[in-house]
């Protein structure tokens, strides 16, 4: 598996995050589109399989799928925004994915927020940056949970390592995650 060490995402220069311009669609409270994924037939829990053309979008999409399981993304606006930093073991893609998804779940639970849009600005699997840890810096958008408006589908307790797959294939990156529900 070849893992890009540092992926600088074009719209989000790591050196100057404040220079990043929020796209118009995030200034209003527009609903996100639902991502494409397949739900895995797991007896007790819920899992997803998805594809993405590159590793960064694979991480973004997996986050979108996780929140789509909680509440369809086309019901979630984007007025609320937060910058998120996640760190993990260097060179350990699975660990970084679990930390990324766990961090977003924590953010959602502690702030009673549903997230709908995920833009990774800095992505460093090998830990070439400070501290020698792998890291993700992302801007995430969503809105306050409102049970009158949001049809909540399932409570996700956590992403698990069980059967976790993040692999580069000839068709792009393939991800499979099983969540404890």
């Amino acid at each position, binding site marked *: 598996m070849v893992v890009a060490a540092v992926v600088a995402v074009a719209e989000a220069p790591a050196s100057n995050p404040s220079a990043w311009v929020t796209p118009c669609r995030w200034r209003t409270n527009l609903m996100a589109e639902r991502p494409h994924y397949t739900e895995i037939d*797991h007896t007790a829990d819920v899992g997803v399989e998805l594809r993405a053309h590159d590793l960064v979008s694979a991480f973004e999409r997996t986050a979108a799928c996780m929140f789509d399981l909680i509440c369809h993304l086309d019901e979630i606006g984007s007025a609320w925004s937060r910058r998120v930093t996640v760190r993990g073991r260097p060179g350990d893609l699975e660990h970084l994915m679990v930390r990324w998804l*766990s961090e977003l779940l924590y953010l959602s639970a502690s702030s009673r927020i549903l997230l709908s849009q995920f833009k990774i600005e800095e992505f460093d699997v090998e830990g070439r940056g400070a501290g020698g840890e792998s890291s993700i810096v992302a801007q995430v958008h969503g809105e306050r*949970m409102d049970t009158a408006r949001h049809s909540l589908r399932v409570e996700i307790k956590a992403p698990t390592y069980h*059967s976790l797959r993040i692999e580069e294939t000839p068709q792009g990156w393939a991800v499979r995650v099983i969540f404890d529900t």
Partner: protein
Amino acid sequence: MSSGKSGENRSTSRGDLTEVAECVWEIARTGGMRVPGRIYADERLLPQILSDKGIEQVVNVAHLPGVVRYSLAMPDIHWGYGFPIGGVAATDPSEGGVVSPGGVGYDINCGVRLVASRMRREDVADRIPDLISALFRDVPCGLGSHGAIGSLSQRDVRDVMAEGARWAVTRGYGTEADLDRTEDGGCLSSADPSTVSKRAVERGRPQVGTLGSGNHFIEVGFVDEIYDEARAAAFGLELGSVTLMIHSGSRGLGYQVCDDYLNVMQDAVPKYGIDLPDRQLACAPVESPEGKRYLAAMASAANYAWANRQVMMVLAKRSIAGVMKASEAELGLRLVYDVCHNIAKMERHMVGDKEKLLCIHRKGATRAFPGSHDDVPDCYRSAGQPVLIPGDMGTHSFVSAGTLTALEETFGSSCHGAGRVMSRTKARKMARGRNLADELRGMGVYVTAKGKATLAEEMPSAYKDVSDVVDVMDRTGIARKVVRLKPLGVAKG
């Protein structure tokens, strides 16, 4: 563990199982297994059990360092992550035995409590919708539910984690007698709140007294069949009497503790040179700093769960008293017992002819001690510890009693429920176009659920027949069947 890919290393077929006693199937030790696997099941349950990856997980658990005797599975076994649901494993700290957060799960001390009453089924027959609405109103249900007793301070949450159910009792939620009828008195003294992260504490602040979602529920039912008169009498369960059952756990605080320590264990696994077939089984020696801290944090979350169920029970009793326009004493509302079914505990058990202090992981398994055990309250000396087994919301739940056989064969453990047989996805597909609430009403069960998909995902056909599961435990002498409960109304998250 190398980089730990797996969970899909081998499949198990009927040919890999040998029936070593009635309803007891053994998987021989192969490869890196340190002990054989043992599955409790009958001919009816076995095909369902073989249809998913639960048995592979029994094999995976048999790889844990220090595991003793067997990697066990109760008849409600099904595919989980890391451990199977319905899995029991004991590790010996003196032999490098490990503790694995994956052997407890995210919902630390998820458990059940049962309340008996003097109310007769006829007394509540036309009040069920009112009762369920009142319970739904007074006990916050659903995803991220909060605010049952207001938001606690961080210091209060630390007190909850140190004191467990007693924290609730000293604040007017229940009585001393409730503590006597709670596993471990509703408090593991090994708790150390300083090992719990600020994040976990923060998540715990608004959630004491809340049910949560998924398969958690509050159920009003009645005793519709008695199998063992003497034990039923000891448990205070009369034919036709109304019962209240609560199923919930440690909420977001427990999930965060598991998440935090699973992360710690990712570093512990290479540090202690542990080799595992599934990364979700990440663990550390019980005697290591990582293992000790996890057990102290897990005990803190377990205590939070006991306080949570104690508060919920009191809120629910008040609701019922309000609807029935009678006092709780007049209604005879009294806790029968509270058991946990997701936990790791240090317990003394016989291994060969030696008594050993072992770390017992029960992941979707209930403690089932005989009456002679020191940890069983005096009121159940003759009957044995009540084992509470909720079924699906349409059929039945059961109360059994722990036995000496359980202590000898399964480290004092029994089943915890019906066990899923159908994925949530498949259940939702099968429920399309159906009105499950009406169907359940046709079966005499009034159900209200907060989550949109909850009724579909939790529909009766998504589960094994709980009677089969309970019968296997009875036939093998692990837990004696005492009474059957029929649901009348259910409030779900």
